[in-house]
């Protein structure tokens, strides 16, 4: 009944329940469309998508940790590659590590969220996949890493791939939560 030793990302992806990818894409599209109607400002929609992603990320991290069985000292590279494969079935590559090892780029070759999507002229500033930056930020915060995630390349704006830049701001240590005199 207990789970087995570390499994490869392919094996994990195969073992979780799948949902129809078109349903997923269209549902996400409907959410963005509704946010645009409700909020009207593109910047507001970007922020809201990031916040939604953050709320997802803080829960997603436990599922990721439980299923992927990575060792305690989580390494950025492994997390990114296994995480994207497990939850979306897409391959992400981690590149462009800077000298201190605190910033890296995540490159997504294909992205199920943007199938069938074209940005109209009125929404050229919209980061359609901003939910990803929130998810990554939320998940990393739960493992004590405060990060900043920004989009470098976006296929909906004419670039050739999706590229996210993840920058580690600081590592937050565990503090004793109770005051001593209580």
């Amino acid at each position: 009944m207990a789970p087995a030793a570390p499994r490869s990302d392919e094996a994990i992806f195969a073992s979780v329940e799948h949902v129809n990818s078109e349903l997923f894409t269209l549902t996400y599209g409907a959410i963005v469309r509704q946010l645009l109607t409700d909020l009207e400002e593109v910047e507001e929609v970007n922020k809201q998508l990031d916040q939604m992603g953050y709320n997802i990320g803080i829960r997603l991290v436990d599922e990721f940790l439980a299923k992927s069985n990575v060792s305690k000292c989580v390494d950025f590279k492994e997390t990114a590659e296994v995480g994207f494969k497990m939850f979306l079935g897409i391959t992400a590559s981690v590149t462009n590590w800077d000298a201190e090892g605190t910033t890296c780029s995540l490159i997504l070759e294909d992205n199920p969220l943007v199938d069938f999507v074209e940005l109209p002229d009125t929404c050229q500033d919209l980061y359609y996949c901003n939910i990803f930056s929130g998810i990554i930020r939320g998940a990393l915060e739960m493992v004590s890493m405060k990060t900043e995630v920004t989009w470098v390349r976006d296929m909906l704006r004419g670039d050739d791939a999706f590229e996210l830049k993840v920058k580690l701001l600081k590592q937050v240590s565990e503090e004793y939560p109770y005051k001593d005199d209580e």
Partner: protein
Amino acid sequence: MQFFGGSEISPSPPVPTASGNNAYMLYIFNRNGVCLLYREWNRPLKTLNSQQDHKLMFGLLFSLKSLTAKMDPTCVDKGNLGVPQLPGQGCSFHSFRTNTYKLSLMESPSGIKIILVTHPRTGDLRESLKYIYNLYVEYVVKNPLYSPGAPIRCELFDTSVDQYVRGLG
């Protein structure tokens, strides 16, 4: 430890009366010290009210982790005692045993701590604790009505944990 177990210390504790019930208590804490879940199956003596009990348990684990990390003979880099550690760093203890009970701990990198107090002759419970963590993910994390950081009020989770723990040999 004077607050758990009976007042007279015997070499072997009484055999659990409920059939197949090896476990005494279960605690689940999050990284901020909030006790998300406390279940009790067999605890004859209670000396503290539940809030103090939870704080004591969390404090005990926090200090033990810090101590065990500092006393690690294989680790090169050690800070001073009392300096907060990152959840992944250093070694971390996973169980301790007294003559009346055994306490097993599992801590995830996200700070979720699962503690199971059982009969002292219980074997290694790490796989079981991982299974409980999986149950937590399935029934609590994925539950849209649950807000992260709040105590767990989820019947399905309670019954599945109950069932699983009662089945532990």
